[in-house]
Every structure is written in C-alpha cells, then in structure tokens.
C-alpha cells in the first residue's frame, strides 16, 4: 500500500542512529537522491535489535517539520517582538563573533556563558571553543543527570562503576530509574533477564511501568532515597552481609563507617521514607545475599537537591562493602579509553588559564563538579590511568548561579549567553527566574531546531541539523572505553548546520588559531578520534568506512583491574571515608540531611502545603521538552497530567481530567488530574517539560505558554536547596498543594513574578547570591602535621606533607631528609646536597663537589658528579640525619642550591 519502495534502484541504506534520547538506537535510513525516504530500526544494532520507540519512529516527521528553523534568523526591532530577518549562516556567524569579541574586550571572556542541554551534541567542541576563548562559564543540565553521581563515585572508588555486567548478575536495584518510559532497549533487557532468573528491586514512589514488573517494589516518600540508602548500608553491616575479604583488602575507613552508620537504622529511616523497616531489610538482604548484584543509576539520584550527595556516597558504599566492584556480574569500572581519543584529550583544557578557572561561577560553593574538585580528581586519575574524565559535563559552572549572575551582577555580570540544544525555561529549575534572565541578558544566541522561548528572546537563532543530518559518536560522556558510531544519512537540509560546525565557524570568526580547528566537519574530527583503532585491527581510511564495516568498538571485558594498581584514589583503595570529599570541605562519610522541603524538618510548611510533589520523571512519548510540536506523538498526550491518588482526589472533589493548580512556595501551574492509585495518597506526580509550541507568541511575556504548565516553576534552585557537593537542585520531594481551577480563577500577575531566592515571599532580588547560605556550612579542612615541620618548609594540607617551596622536595619525617619524589633522590635538609648511595657521601648538584656524610666537610678533590638520580633510586640504607654536625655549616636549603 505504501508507495515508497525501499528496494528501488538508487536507494542507499545508511547506518544512522536515533538522536531523540541517550540510547542512540540504530536506525537504517533509506536514502534516494539525497532524501531520506524511509527509516526503520536496525535489526543488527546491539542496543535496540530493530526496535524503535515513539520518538525514534517520528524521525522523518522531525526532519522536515514545517515549524523547524531552516535559516539563520536575526532579530529585527524590539526583543520579544517576534520579528525576524533571514540571513545567511556566515553573516550570522561573523556578526555574533564580532559581538562576543567586543564583550570579551570590555568585560573579560568570563562574561560570555553557554547553556547546554542533554548529551545530543558534540560538546567537546563547545568546550574547545570556550577554553580557547578563555571563559570557564559553560554549563549544562548535567547536574540533574548523572554527573554529580559520577563525580562522587569517582571520588570514592576512582572511577564511577556505572557499567553493569547484568548477564552474570543475580539481583539488580533499579533505583529511581524507569526504563519503561525512558530507556526502552534497557527495559527489554531487564524483562529478559528477569525471565532468566535475576531479581529486580525497583525503588520508585510511583507504580511506574518498571515497578509494575518488579520482584520487590519500594514505594518510598519522594526525596527520601538517601535515608533508604543509609538504612540499607546499616542493615548490610549490622547483619554481617558484607564481603569481608574485599573490605579488609581494598577499603579504607571501615571502622569509622561502622561507627558512623550506627545512627541510621531502618527504624530511623521508617518515618522518613514511609517504608516498613522490615521491607528495607528485605531489600538490603536481597541485594547483599544475591551477589554479584548491581545498583543501576537513575536520574533521581541527582534530583533530590541538598540530600543528593550523601545518597550517592551511600549507594557507592553499598556496592563496595558487598564486593560488587569490577567483578563478573558486578558494577564494572570502565575507566577511560586507551584505544581512541577521549573527549578530554580534544577539549583543549590547557588553554584555559588558572585565573580564568578560578572565575567559574559556582565553583566557590559547589566544588566537586567544578574546577576545584574536578582538578583534584583529574590529577589522581592521571596518576593511575594516565587519562582524566571529561571536563565538559564534569567540570562546569553552576547553571542556576549563572542565571542569577545575569539578573544580579553577582559575582560579576554575565553579558552574553549562547543557548545550544536546550530549552532552559522548561528544563532548568525555577523557570520564572530563568525566563527573566533570558529577557535581561544583553546578548543572546540560540542554536535549536525549533523556536523555543529562549530563541524567542534571542538576538540570533541558528538553524541546527538534526539526527539524520549528522554523524554521531557515542562514548557515554567520554568516560567509558567503548565506542558506538553512526553515519550521516544526508547532508543538512536548507541552511542548517551541525552544532560542531557552529562552534568551529564561531571559533575561526572570533580569531582562534586555525590550526586548533583542523577538522572541517564531523567525519574528519571523528576519524581523528578513532584513528588509534586503525592499528588495532580496524584498518579503515575514513570514519564512514569504520561505520560501514565495524560501527562499534567494545574492548574485551576486563575484571578486577584494581588488582594491578589499586583503585584510582589517593590511597589506592576504595575510600569509604572519602579523602577528596573531606578536602573539599564535605562530610567524609555520608551524613544525612533532609531533602529540600519535608514535613519532618518543617512541619509549619507542611501544614500549608500538605502534599509531596515529585517530578522530573520521563514519560512516553516525550523526551524532556522535545517533540511537543510533532502531532504524530502529541496526540498521545494533548495536555499535561498530574497523577493523584483517588482517595486524595475524592477529598478535594477532583475528578479525572479536571484542570487543577499545583502550587509550591515558588509559584503555581495548571495541569489536568489523572486520578489513579499509582501514587501514595500523600503524593502527587506531575509531568515534566510541558510547553505549548502551537500557541506561538500570543503572550510575549511568557511565549508558547512556557510557564503555564511547566513543572519547573515549582522546583527550587535556592542555594540552600542545592546539594553542596554536586550542586544539583531540588526536583523531587517538594511540598505542594493542589486545588481545582475555578471559573473566575484566571492567572495572576504574581504567576510570572520571580524572586531570588525563589522561596522568598516578596518578588524581586531579596538576597544576593554571594550572601545566600548553603544547606550546610563547609567543614574546614585543616589537618595538622603529626610531626614538627622544620623551619623553611611549608605544610601542604591536601597532600598532608611538608615540602620545600623552591624545589618541591617533600620532607620525610621518618628519616629527616628531603625526597625528590620524581627521582626518589634524598637531599640533605640543611645543605641541600644530594645523597649518593654508591659512594656513601653527599654531592652538591650545582658544583659537583662532594662532602663527607658525617662532617659535611668537602672531600679533597671531588670527582665529577655521576648522575646520582639513576644510582640513588630506592636505596634501602638511608642515612640517618645528623643534624648536630650539619648545624656548623647551617646553610638553608635555598642557599645551598645557589
């Protein structure tokens, strides 16, 4: 019946991929005369095995949708006036570049910030642009999506063990993870594994698609995941379910942990989580007794606000003490790739000067996911692996703080914002504040497929090429060792370009050196990335050839990697008590604090807002705020729905389909009621991402109805609600109330007024960001030396050593000598002479003269200094310090060197 014949002559099959969520399912695109005529799931792709979900199937509707932006648009007239002039791409690029250079000259590079979305862009190129440009202020929604988890787990065990080896596993906890709506290929995998016998524990406050298939479902209070994790650690430890060998050999901080965890019993967690203590124990036993077992990460971990960090740490401990790290069937530590170039190696982080790194907004508060913490982790990682995690994503400005900086000029004014692949009003917290920042920022550029609220207020809107118009590489944020590649089906249509082209063109137009951008298109850049594979049995001469012949590179599974060099932490062990967190001023052991708003810590607030709101969860068919324009999926959900238990709805007189207001301290939104018993009577679940692109700019104050049903109006980005460790803000477990929309209840002016902080009663800026408090004060990290630091030496807190400033030599308190750590040569503390173990005397490295070990007197005619570095390595017979005799000459170390 279909007129299109995919077997007709001239039809090419391209191995493309779906780009509408992170799974990157394989897609076969049938191309004729430069046009895609049909797509279908690729049966030979290991991820989806031919499957495609709602989103994947609408790729062709997306490709040439009438609402797509096909040409660069330049604003004409007033901002928000919705008048545009179509201009050529190159003209737009050169005008943007001129403006950025002007702002850089006037206010410094840091006045230019960029906002990103999820991992559907070549964001190493964005980072490369920003690094060479000199600005540290690029940011994503990364803090809501895995990045803080990655960094906390990396701080504790050296590299996040995120690869689950489910084939040999016996039990998996899907913690705040609903693959039934957000990761369809994963859901199939879990269903198959369950049939084969694996036990599935689902932690979810909602009876989700995944919870419906679980063996054990823990319907906890939204936002109380941290308490549950701590209580599970408690159960495992106090019931003796730990893997004692692993703990004894590979963990540090065990005794402190046992003492610390005593306070977090399941009975303590019961009122916080609303779970029966026996049920918590049952889950802990199921996990700990069925090893090897896994904990699968879910987005919830990063969306709990202040309480997030401790929960990540507790889950990491749970894995470690049950012996599930890097073993067959356990949580594998992939480490960086050694067979192709990682994102970090092509980001040009060396270009960013230290003084610019220090200006990164939010890095003074949320340290682990910005330069202070990243630098520490990257240094340790380089010592072990030789490579570091990606800086893009893992080391970024704090998004909400950048928006606050635009509005307040605190800590300094941010004058230009480039928005790429995100709809910030829908996806960042506290939407009213974000919208105001977009209206206020001096220069705004948006790169997008569609006219979004951000694009609406922009000076330039850049047309971006979509899934079928670009090749893609998938390396899990550049921190795994496998690679999945797909090719371009067709060249970009109209005057669209890929985001890589945007950053490269902009880089060259702003005057960045052309030799830093040698790759004219993605294929060239990607070939550069995979080039090391060419010598490893993948003889290809271009990127396209790699995709057509191989498409993937999966290194052989390699277990127990820690056996060689230990874990990549400062102590080479799993640091249950984390030294890196401690150094940064955070609790070294997971310490519970309540989620942003809860009835136990703030009963007065709970009286006014009696229901618990959870949001941020994905639902079919949309991904974040995408695909709302496409009627082929929009028909499944015309309107936004929140789920409310029938018992609660009956009390409030709310019937199925009623429009209701949902209100928190920060504002209110309208959604329709879905009355069904899939949530607790005390909980409501609101859909995320809603806006109404079909409405256009009828209301120029809030175009596309972007505040009306947008759940992020309700979420909080106040500093005190953010996780001090990773900076993630509060999407879940907030307090709210719900009431029906009345006939006369029109929107009020207050529904669009913002305040900083969002929870303030008065609109406007009531507290400057630099004065706002965190959820807890940083714990001063000031370890004292347990030995006397000799005069002239400095104490380094983070390394806990005394060192000589001029040379960097480290003081060894046991022998009293200085050690050059790179060559392991001993130096005399007072004279600065090196010890030569072959001749058992001292050498002045400057003059070559030799001195007696005991008296420090020059030995007659000293022979030429024979490179002592090589000879002196690891000499066991260390000379005893003879300070008394050395006193006579008593030159300081510095003088001795001269």
């Amino acid at each position, binding site marked *: 019946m279909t007129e299109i014949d995919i077997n007709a002559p001239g039809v090419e099959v391209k191995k493309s991929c779906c780009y509408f969520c992170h799974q990157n399912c394989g897609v076969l695109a049938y191309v004729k005369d430069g046009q895609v005529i049909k797509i*279908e799931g690729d049966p030979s792709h290991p991820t989806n095995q031919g499957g495609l*979900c709602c989103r994947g*199937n609408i790729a062709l509707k997306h490709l040439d949708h009438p609402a797509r932006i096909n040409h660069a648009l330049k604003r004409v007239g007033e901002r928000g006036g919705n008048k545009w002039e179509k201009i050529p791409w190159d003209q737009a690029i050169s005008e943007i570049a001129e403006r950025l250079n002007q702002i850089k000259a006037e206010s410094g590079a840091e006045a230019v910030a960029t906002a990103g979305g999820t991992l559907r862009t070549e964001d190493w190129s964005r980072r490369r642009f920003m690094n060479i440009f000199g600005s540290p202020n690029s940011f994503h929604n990364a803090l809501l999506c895995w990045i803080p988890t990655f960094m906390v787990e990396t701080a504790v065990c050296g590299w996040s063990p995120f690869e689950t080896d489910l084939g040999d596993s016996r039990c998996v906890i899907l913690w705040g993870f609903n693959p039934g709506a957000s990761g369809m290929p994963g859901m*199939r995998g879990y269903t198959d594994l369950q049939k084969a016998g694996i036990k599935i524990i689902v932690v979810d406050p909602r*009876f989700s698609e995944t919870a419906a298939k679980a063996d054990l479902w823990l319907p906890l209070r939204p936002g109380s995941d941290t308490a549950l994790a701590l209580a599970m650690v408690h159960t495992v430890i106090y019931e003796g379910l730990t893997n004692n060998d692993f703990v004894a050999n590979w963990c540090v901080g065990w005794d402190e942990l046992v003492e610390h965890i005593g306070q977090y019993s399941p009975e303590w967690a019961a009122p916080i989580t609303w779970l029966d203590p026996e049920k918590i124990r049952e889950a802990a036993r199921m996990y700990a007794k069925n090893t090897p077992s896994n904990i699968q990460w879910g987005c919830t971990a990063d969306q709990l606000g202040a309480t997030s960090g401790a929960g990540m740490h507790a889950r990491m401990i749970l894995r470690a003490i049950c012996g599930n790290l890097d073993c067959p069937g356990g949580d594998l530590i992939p480490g960086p790739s050694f067979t192709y170039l990682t994102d970090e190696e092509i980001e040009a982080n060396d270009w960013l000067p230290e003084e610019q790194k220090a200006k990164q907004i939010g890095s003074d508060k949320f340290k682990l996911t910005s330069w202070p913490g990243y630098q520490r982790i990257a240094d340790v990682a380089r010592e072990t692996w030789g490579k570091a995690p990606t800086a893009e994503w893992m080391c970024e400005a704090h998004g909400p703080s950048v928006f606050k900086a635009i509005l307040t000029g605190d800590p300094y004014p941010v004058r230009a914002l480039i928005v790429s692949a995100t709809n910030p009003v829908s996806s960042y917290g506290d939407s009213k504040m974000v919208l105001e920042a977009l209206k206020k920022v001096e220069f705004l550029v948006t790169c997008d497929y569609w006219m979004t609220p951000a694009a609406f207020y922009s000076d330039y809107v850049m047309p971006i090429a979509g899934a079928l118009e670009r090749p893609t590489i998938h390396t899990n944020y550049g921190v795994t060792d496998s690679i999945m590649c797909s090719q371009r089906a067709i060249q970009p249509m109209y005057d669209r370009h890929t985001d890589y082209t945007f950053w490269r063109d902009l880089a060259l137009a702003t005057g960045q050196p052309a030799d830093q951008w040698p790759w004219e298109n993605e294929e060239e850049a990607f070939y550069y990335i995979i080039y090391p594979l060419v010598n490893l049995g993948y003889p290809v001469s271009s990127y396209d050839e790699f995709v057509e012949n191989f498409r993937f590179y999966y290194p052989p599974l390699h277990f127990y990697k820690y056996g060689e060099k230990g874990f990549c932490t400062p102590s080479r062990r799993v640091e249950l008590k984390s030294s890196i967190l401690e150094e940064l001023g955070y609790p070294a052991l997971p310490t519970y604090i309540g989620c942003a708003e809860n009835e136990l810590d703030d009963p007065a607030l709970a009286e006014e807002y009696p229901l618990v709101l959870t949001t941020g969860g994905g639902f079919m068919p949309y991904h974040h705020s995408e695909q709302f324009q496409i009627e082929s999926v929009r028909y*499944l959900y015309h309107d936004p729905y929140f789920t409310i238990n029938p*018992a609660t709805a009956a009390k409030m007189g709310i019937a199925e389909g009623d429009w209701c207001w949902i209100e928190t301290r920060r504002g209110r939104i309208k959604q329709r009621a879905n009355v069904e*018993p899939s*949530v*607790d009577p005390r909980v409501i679940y609101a859909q995320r991402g809603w806006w109404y692109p079909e409405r256009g700019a009828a209301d120029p104050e809030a175009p596309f109805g972007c505040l009306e049903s947008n759940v992020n109006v309700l979420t909080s980005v106040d500093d005190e609600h953010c996780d001090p460790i990773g900076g993630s803000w509060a999407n879940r477990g907030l307090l709210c109330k719900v009431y029906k929309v009345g006939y006369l209840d029109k929107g009020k002016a207050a529904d669009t007024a913002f305040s900083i902080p969002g929870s303030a009663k008065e609109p406007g800026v009531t507290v400057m960001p630099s004065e706002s408090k965190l959820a807890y004060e940083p714990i001063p990290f000031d370890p004292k030396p347990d030995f006397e630091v000799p005069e002239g030496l400095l104490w380094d807190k983070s390394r806990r050593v005394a060192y000589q400033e001029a040379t960097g030599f480290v003081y060894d308190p046991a022998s009293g000598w200085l050690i050059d750590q790179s060559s392991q040569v001993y130096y005399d503390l007072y004279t600065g002479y090196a010890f030569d173990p072959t001749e058992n005397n001292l050498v002045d490295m400057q003059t070559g003269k030799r001195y007696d070990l005991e008296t420090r007197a020059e030995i007659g005619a000293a022979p030429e200094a024979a490179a002592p570095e090589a000879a002196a390595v690891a000499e066991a017979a260390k000379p005893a310090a003879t300070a008394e005799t050395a006193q006579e000459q008593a030159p300081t170390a510095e003088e001795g060197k001269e």
Partner: protein
Amino acid sequence: MTRYVMVMDQRRCIGCQSCSVACRTWNDLPMDIVYNPVVTEGVKGEWPHVHVNYTPLICMHCEKAPCTLCCPTGASQKDDDGTVWIDYKKCMGCKVCVQACPYGARDTSEMSPRLERYARKCTFCRDRRQMNPEAKPYCVDTCHQKARIFGDLDDPESEVSRIIGSVETVRLMEDFGTEPQIYYIPALGGQR
C-alpha cells in the same frame, strides 16, 4: 499452507505506544485514524497493592471475517495466507465493512494525504512482505519489548506455533464466532 497470526504477550507490554506511532509513520496515516492503539484501564487496585494491564489492539484478521462477507464490491478480501486487506481499485468507501467489524478495527479518514474516505485498516504490513517475504509487520519489528510475535501457525516449527501450543492464550470476543487470529498471553497468566 500459510496462516499468519500474531501473539500479543501482555506480560511484556508496558504500554509505550511505540507500535501505534510506528504504524502511523510507516503507513503515513493521517491523524484521525489509528490501526493499532494500545488500550488500558489504567492502574487498578488499592494503594500500594495495584496492578496494570495493557491490551494492544489491531485488526484481528478473522478466519470468518465479516468485513469481507459484507463488502458489496469485493474490495475487502482475504489472502490465502490469512491476511485481510482492501483493494483500493475496487473500494468505493461505502463503510459497510466499518459497521460490520465487531472489533472496531476499520475506519475511514477525512484527512489527506492519501485514501481519503476509503475504509482503512491494518494489513499485517502486506506491503513489506511483498517486497521481502521474510519481513514482519513493522509494529512487530519496532516493539522494543518484543511483546508482539508474528508468524505462520501452520508451520509447527514457528515461534507462534510453539507459544500457542505451550502457553495459555486467549482471543478477544471469541463468542462472535469470527475466529480472530490475534492471540493474547494475559499479563498474569501464561501457564497452561
């Protein structure tokens, strides 16, 4: 002989509607018609003891299809392999078949771009099999959960024969006597 049937594994279906959207895009359907909706009564029970069930609907490709019997022009017809389909060279859009189908699987569309006002329905992707005899209906290929299984019931080696022979399956509204060829494995069933 070949007798194509489909098995819907309700134990695996999670109600994601991918099949429904996939069919819409593969067959280029206008918005006022859908061949294979997935329906549900929503979550039922008393919190937290709840359950949910999804039922993918589709043309049942009945053995004794009333739509073919009532068609005045012979446009609605049945292939030897069991596929019920409509020949648009003969269809005149009288909608008698739409009335006759007890499953509501047929409808007409008032919207462009193609086949306005003609009766339309699922054809087990007859077009795909004409191009490649091994091809399965697109909804089967696109289902991530592999909740749809398609095959030849007359072939004792086929997966559908194996399932129907070993697992308890039900057919919808069998008492109408049309002998539908879609078999369902109930969500809480599966054992014979």
